[in-house]
C-alpha cells in the first residue's frame, strides 16, 4: 500500500512576459488502487501539475511537498522519481531518433528495477504486452516514438506503464487524439495494468469520455492552479452537463465553452 501526498504545492514557469505562477497551493492524497480524475478548463494548470510531479525542469517549485510514502521527491531528479515509482504518461510523447524502442525499454526496465531483466522472460513479457495493445511487432525495432501516429504513441506509453509497473501513474490527457477504437484499447491497457499492479492513478483530462472506460473513484475539479471541488463519479456527469464556466475566475474568457 503506497501513498502519494501533495501538500500546498506551488510552482511557476518563466515566460517572456516574466514569472507566471501556475500551481497555487495544490493539496491531494492518492492511495494505491485509487483512480482520481483531475478535470478542469484549459489553462488551469492540470498538465503543469503532472509535469511538476514528474520533475520537468521547466516548472520551478516555489513551495510545498510531494511525499511518496513519506519521502519528499521534489528535490529528486526525474529518473530518481521514476525509480521511486512515479510514471507520467505524456500527452505528447517525445520522439527520440536513433534509440530503438527495445533498447529504450530494456534500459528503462533495468534502471527502474535496479537489475537487468532476464532476457527470456523479458522478451516474452514485451511481446505479449505489445500483442495485447495490438501493436505491430515492428514497433520494437523502430526509434522511440519516431514516426508513430498519435494513437501509436499513446499505446507505447501504456506499454511502458505495463512493463515498468509504477506505484503511481499520472496520465496526462491520454485520451486526446484517439479515435474510439484506440481509446478502448488504451483504456483496457490501463485497466489491465492497474488490475495487475494495483497502482494509484491520477488521470488528467479535459473530457469525460475516457471516464466511461477508466472508472474514477474520485473526481476533482482543478481551476486557477488548485483544486476547487472534489466529489464522486457523479461530479464528472455534472461537468459534462454544465461545463467549467462556474469554476473560472470572474471576468476570464470562457475557454471551455469554445473547446
Amino acid at each position, binding site marked *: 500500500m503506497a501513498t502519494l501526498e501533495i501538500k500546498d504545492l506551488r510552482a511557476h514557469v518563466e515566460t517572456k512576459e516574466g514569472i507566471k505562477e501556475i500551481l497555487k497551493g495544490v493539496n491531494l492524497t492518492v492511495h494505491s488502487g485509487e483512480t482520481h480524475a483531475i478535470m478542469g478548463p484549459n489553462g488551469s494548470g492540470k498538465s503543469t501539475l503532472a509535469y511538476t510531479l*514528474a*520533475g*520537468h*525542469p521547466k516548472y520551478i517549485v516555489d513551495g510545498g511537498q510531494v511525499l511518496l510514502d513519506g519521502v519528499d521527491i521534489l528535490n529528486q*531528479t*526525474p*529518473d530518481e*522519481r*521514476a*525509480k521511486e515509482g512515479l*510514471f*507520467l504518461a*505524456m500527452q505528447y*510523447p*517525445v*520522439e*527520440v*531518433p*536513433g*534509440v*530503438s524502442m527495445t*533498447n*529504450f525499454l530494456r*534500459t*528503462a526496465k533495468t*534502471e*527502474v528495477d535496479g537489475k537487468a531483466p532476464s532476457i527470456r522472460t523479458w522478451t516474452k513479457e514485451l511481446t505479449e504486452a505489445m500483442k495485447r495493445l495490438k501493436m505491430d511487432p515492428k514497433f520494437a525495432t523502430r*526509434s*522511440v516514438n519516431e514516426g508513430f501516429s498519435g494513437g501509436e504513441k499513446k499505446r507505447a506509453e501504456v506499454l*511502458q506503464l505495463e512493463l*515498468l509497473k509504477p506505484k503511481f501513474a499520472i496520465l496526462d490527457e491520454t485520451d486526446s487524439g484517439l479515435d474510439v477504437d484506440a481509446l478502448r484499447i488504451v483504456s483496457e491497457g490501463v485497466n489491465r495494468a492497474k488490475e495487475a499492479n494495483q497502482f494509484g492513478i491520477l488521470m488528467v483530462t479535459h473530457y469525460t469520455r475516457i471516464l466511461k472506460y477508466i472508472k474514477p473513484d474520485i473526481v476533482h475539479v482543478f481551476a486557477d492552479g488548485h483544486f476547487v471541488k472534489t466529489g464522486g463519479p457523479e461530479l464528472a456527469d455534472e461537468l459534462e452537463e454544465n461545463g467549467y464556466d462556474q469554476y473560472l475566475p470572474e471576468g476570464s474568457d470562457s475557454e471551455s465553452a469554445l473547446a
Partner: protein
Amino acid sequence: MADNKEINIPVADPNDPYAVPAAMPSSADRAPRSFDVAAFPTPEKKQDEWRYTPLERIEEFFDVFEPSGETEVTVSMIDGSEPVDGVRVRRVPMGEAPSGTVSKPNDRVSAVEWNSAREAVVVELKGEIAQPVLVKVHGNGMDLDALHLVVSAADKTHADVVVEHDGSARLAEGVEIVTGTDSHVSFTSIQEWDKDAKHVGNHRIHLGAGASLRHSVVTLGGDAVRIRMDQDFGGEQGELNMLGIYFVDPGEHIEHRTMVVHNHPDCKSRVVYKGALDGKGAHSTWVGNALIEPTAPGTDSYELNRNLVLTPGAIADSEPNLEIENGNIIGAGHASSVGRFDDEELFYLESRGIPETEARKLVVRGFFGELVEEIGIPAISEHLMNVIDRRLARGESDAMAQVLEDK
C-alpha cells in the same frame, strides 16, 4: 538520368569575356600539388584551409623532422591471424612505387610527412578476401613520428581494410589508397588515441573505373586530430561513400576535411559525417568540398554533416563547399547542421528512470548507430559499434568513478 555523355568545355571568348558559360579555373586547379615542402607556405589562420585549426597546437608538423620510428605498425587479419593469400605486405623506400603514385601532397603538413617518413608500409590486395585486414598503428610516446601507408587493391578485388590507431603519439600520417577497375573495397580508419595524442593525417584516394569504395573515418579521441582526404575517380561509374564519426571531449580539436573530385562521367559520391561534442572547449571542424569538373556529366553527389552538441561550451564548425562546373548532372546536394541535445528528449528518457548520463549515451549511440548500420558490411559495422560502445563505456566509468568519489 543524364544520358548525354558528350563533354563540351566552354571556352571564353577573349573579346567577350563575360559571355557565359566560360571555363573558370576551379580552386582545385589553383591549389598546389607537390612533393616539395617549399611549394606550400607555412600555415596561417588567414589561409582559408587553416582558418579553423588551432595552429599553435600542431606547429611541430610544419617543418621536416627526424621521425622517432616509435610507432608500431602490424598487419594481420582482423581476428589476429596471419595475412591470407591475396594480402601482400611489404615496406618500400619513400618514392618507390606504389608510394607516391596517388596524386601528390596537397598542403604543408602532407609534404612534411612525405619528406619526413623513412619508408612506406604497402598493403596490396588481390582477389576475394573474406575477412577484413587489420592494420594496427600503436603510438609509443610523444616523440614526433611519420608514417606512410599505401593500400593498393588490384582490379576486381573485394576487400576490407581497417586501420586502428591507439596509444600516445605525435604522428604525421600519409595514406594513399588506390583501387583497381571494378573493385569493391572498404577502408576504415579508427582513431582511438590517448588524450594527449596529436595526429595530422592526409588520405589521397584514387578509385578505379566502375569501382566502389567505402571510406570511413572514426575519430574518438586525441588532443588535436586533423585529417584531410582528397579523392578523384579513374574512370566512369565509380562510386564513393565516405562516412565519418567523431566524438569530441572537452579541450579537444577534431578536424576532418573531405575533398571529392568528380572528374569522370557518371560517378556517384556520398559524404556523411556525424559528430557529437561534449563539454567546454570541445571543437570539431568538418569541411566538405566537392568539385564537379566539366569532364563529369552525370555526376550524382551529396554531402552531409550533422553535429550533436551534448553540453554547452562546445564549438562545431561545419562548412560544405560545392563547385559545380557542369550543368548536366543528376545532383549535387549538401546539408549541414549543428543541434543541441534536446531537453525534451532528455526529460522523456529521465522520466522513465534513465539517468542523465545514461540518457546522453543512449542518444549518442543511436545518433552514430544509424550511420554505422548503413555501412552494410557486417564485420565492419560490428567492429565500429564495438569501438563506439567502448568509447561510451569509458565515459560511464568516469562518471561512475565520480559518483563513488562523491560518496
